[in-house]
C-alpha cells in the first residue's frame, strides 16, 4: 500500500479523498492554489503544497507543478478526484513516466473511453445497446447532414472530447443541422481543443441512469447498483438517488450486469460509471466516466462500501475486498447538490464570504462539504459547495429526511445564493415524488425551453 498519496484536486472531493487516506493510515498531500491556502482540506491533509495562482490552468491543471509537489513530498500515487485532470490520459501517462501511480484506469483505457465516439463503438462491440448514430465523426457538415438524415430527427451533436454535460447540441429540424454542426464544432474546438463531433438519435425525455462499477487488476469486477440522475438542468445534475425509482428491477439488474461485463471486456480497472438513457423498458449506453463521480456517496450509503478506499486498493495492486455477493444494497439514498448559484438568474455562480455556515446533521444524514464560516467563495472554481446525502429504509423516508436536512442547512453570506430553495421545490414536485419524472423535469419546472 502507498505511504503517501497526493490529491490533485480541491473542494469537497479533495477533503473526501483525504478522509479516506487518513482512515487507511496513508499520509495525504493536498495541493492548492493561492485562493485555497486556507481551505478545509489544508487542515485535514498531512502536508500542503501551494502549486500556483487561483487560475486553474496555472494550479489544478498545472501538471509540472503537481508532479513536482508529488516528488518533493514523497508521494507514490496521485488521486485526481473528478474534473480538472481526472480524465486526462496525458496526465495519467506523465504520472506513470514519473514513477507515480495514477489512481484511475490506464491511460489506454482513458483514451479509448474518453473519445466518446470511440467509446460508443467499443461498448456497442462489448454488447451494450447504443442509440442509432454514426460510428465515425463526420468530416464535414454535408457528411453530418447525411448521417443525421439516416439516423432520424431529433439528433444530438456531441463533442468527441466533451464531458460534464458540455459540448452538446440538439437539432430538431433538418434545416438547422448544418448551422448547428458549424457552431458546435467551433465551440468544441474552443473548449476541448478538439472539434470532432459525433451524432446520435436524441431521446427527448428519458431517465438518466448510471451504473457504478469497480474492477481490480486481477479480473474481479462488481457493480454497486445504479444511480438515477434525471434531475438535471442543461445536463448538470442536481439530485441523484439509488435505486432508480419506478424502474423495473429486472431492467436495472440487467443494465448493471451488462455494464460490469462490458467494463471487464475492455479491461477497465478502478471505479467507473456507465451512463445510460432509459426510455420505458429500453436502455441505451451513453458514455463511461473513468473517475469517481460527484454522486458516488449515494452508492456508498446503500452498500456500505467506501469507493475511494476501493479505488486506492485497486491502484495499489490489491484485489477488491468484496465480491458481487457482498454487495447487498439496502434502503434508498438521495444526494442533493448545494451549489452557490442563483437559479433565478440562470444559475449564475455567486461569490462572497460565508458569514454563517451550519451543515445539517442527525440520523442517516451525511454532508460532504469544504464550507466553513469565513470561507470566501471565489468565482475561480466550480460552484459546488456541499453535497447532502440522506438515507432511508424507503424512498419516501429518504426524501422527507432530505427536506428536513435542507431546511436546517444555514448558508449565509453577502451576495451568496444557493440551490437549496430550488432543491426543496423539486422535492415537493408531485412528478418527482411519484417518480414519474425524466430529464426534462427541471426544465419544465423552471419554464425554460
Amino acid at each position, binding site marked *: 500500500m502507498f505511504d503517501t498519496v497526493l490529491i490533485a484536486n480541491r473542494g469537497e472531493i479533495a477533503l473526501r479523498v483525504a478522509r479516506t487516506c487518513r482512515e487507511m493510515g496513508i499520509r495525504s498531500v493536498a495541493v492548492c492554489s493561492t485562493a485555497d491556502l486556507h481551505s478545509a482540506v489544508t487542515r485535514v491533509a498531512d502536508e500542503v503544497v501551494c502549486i500556483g495562482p487561483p487560475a486553474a490552468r496555472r494550479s489544478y491543471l498545472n501538471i*509540472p507543478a503537481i508532479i513536482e509537489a508529488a516528488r518533493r513530498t514523497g508521494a507514490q500515487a496521485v488521486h485526481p478526484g473528478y474534473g480538472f485532470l481526472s480524465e486526462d490520459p496525458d496526465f495519467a501517462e506523465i504520472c506513470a513516466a514519473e514513477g507515480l501511480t495514477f489512481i484511475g484506469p490506464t491511460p489506454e483505457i482513458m483514451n479509448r473511453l474518453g473519445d466518446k465516439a470511440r467509446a460508443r463503438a467499443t461498448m456497442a462491440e462489448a454488447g451494450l445497446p447504443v442509440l442509432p448514430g454514426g460510428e465515425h465523426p463526420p468530416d464535414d457538415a454535408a457528411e453530418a447532414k447525411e448521417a443525421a438524415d439516416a439516423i432520424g430527427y431529433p439528433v444530438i451533436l456531441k463533442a468527441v472530447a466533451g464531458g460534464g454535460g458540455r459540448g452538446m447540441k440538439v437539432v430538431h429540424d433538418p434545416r438547422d443541422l448544418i448551422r448547428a454542426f458549424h457552431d458546435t464544432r467551433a465551440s468544441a474546438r474552443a473548449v476541448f481543443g478538439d472539434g470532432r463531433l459525433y451524432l446520435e438519435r436524441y431521446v427527448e425525455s428519458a431517465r438518466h441512469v448510471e451504473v457504478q462499477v469497480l474492477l481490480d487488476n486481477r479480473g474481479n469486477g462488481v457493480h454497486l447498483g445504479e444511480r438515477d440522475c434525471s434531475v438535471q438542468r442543461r445536463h448538470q445534475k442536481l439530485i441523484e438517488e439509488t435505486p432508480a425509482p419506478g424502474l423495473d428491477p429486472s431492467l436495472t439488474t440487467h443494465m448493471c450486469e451488462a455494464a460490469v461485463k462490458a467494463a471487464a471486456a475492455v479491461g477497465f480497472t478502478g471505479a467507473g460509471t456507465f451512463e445510460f438513457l432509459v426510455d420505458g423498458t429500453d436502455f441505451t449506453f451513453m458514455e463511461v466516466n473513468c473517475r469517481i463521480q460527484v454522486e458516488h456517496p449515494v452508492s456508498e450509503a446503500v452498500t456500505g462500501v467506501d469507493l475511494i478506499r476501493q479505488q486506492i486498493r485497486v491502484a495499489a495492486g490489491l484485489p477488491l475486498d468484496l465480491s458481487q455477493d457482498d454487495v447487498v444494497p439496502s434502503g434508498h439514498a438521495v444526494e442533493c447538490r448545494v451549489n452557490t448559484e442563483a437559479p433565478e438568474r440562470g444559475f449564475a455562480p455567486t461569490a462572497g464570504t460565508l458569514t454563517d455556515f451550519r451543515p445539517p446533521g442527525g440520523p442517516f444524514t451525511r454532508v460532504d462539504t469544504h464550507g466553513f464560516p469565513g470561507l470566501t467563495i471565489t468565482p475561480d472554481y466550480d460552484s459546488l459547495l456541499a453535497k447532502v446525502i440522506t438515507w432511508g429504509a424507503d424512498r419516501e423516508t429518504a426524501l422527507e429526511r432530505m427536506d428536513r436536512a435542507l431546511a436546517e442547512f444555514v448558508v449565509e453570506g453577502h451576495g451568496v445564493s444557493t440551490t437549496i430553495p430550488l432543491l426543496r421545490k423539486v422535492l415537493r414536485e408531485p412528478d418527482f415524488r411519484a417518480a414519474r419524472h425524466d430529464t426534462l423535469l427541471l426544465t419544465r419546472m423552471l419554464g425554460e425551453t
Partner: protein
Amino acid sequence: MQDPESEIVVDEVVRGAERLLRASDRPLRRIVVRSGAVCVELEWPSAAEAAIVAAEPAPVEGATSLLYVRAPMVGTFYHAPEPGADPFVRLGDLIELGSQIGVLEAMKIMNPVEAGVAGRVTEVLVPDGTPVEYEQPLIVIEPAGV
C-alpha cells in the same frame, strides 16, 4: 482642522481607504489611513479569520520596507547554475531589477528566477537544493533608495 482644507483631506483619506478596500482580494481585518490629524480606521470581526491570519508568516513586506523574491513555481531552488559554481547572489549584493538570483528546477527543466525589484540582498531564506512551493519567499531584498 477648521479650514476648508480639512474637507479635502478627509475626503482624500476616505477615498484612499475605499481604494484599499476594493483592492484587497481577501477579507481584511483592519485598515488605517492617516494623514496628519485625519485618520480613518476600519476593523472587521476576526473570529473566522483569526486562525488564517495567525497561520501566515509575519508580513515583513511593508512593515519594514523589505521585499521578497518569491518562487514563481513549485520546484527545487538552487543558488548556483551548477553544483560547485558560484551562487548567483550573496548576502549584501546589490542587484538590479531582473537580475537572476537562482534557478528553479521543475520537471528537469531549469527555470531562472529573477528579482522583481532592485536593491540589496539582506537574507537568503531557502538553502541550496531545497524544494519550494509556489510564492514561497526565497530571498529578502532591501529596495534601492531606502
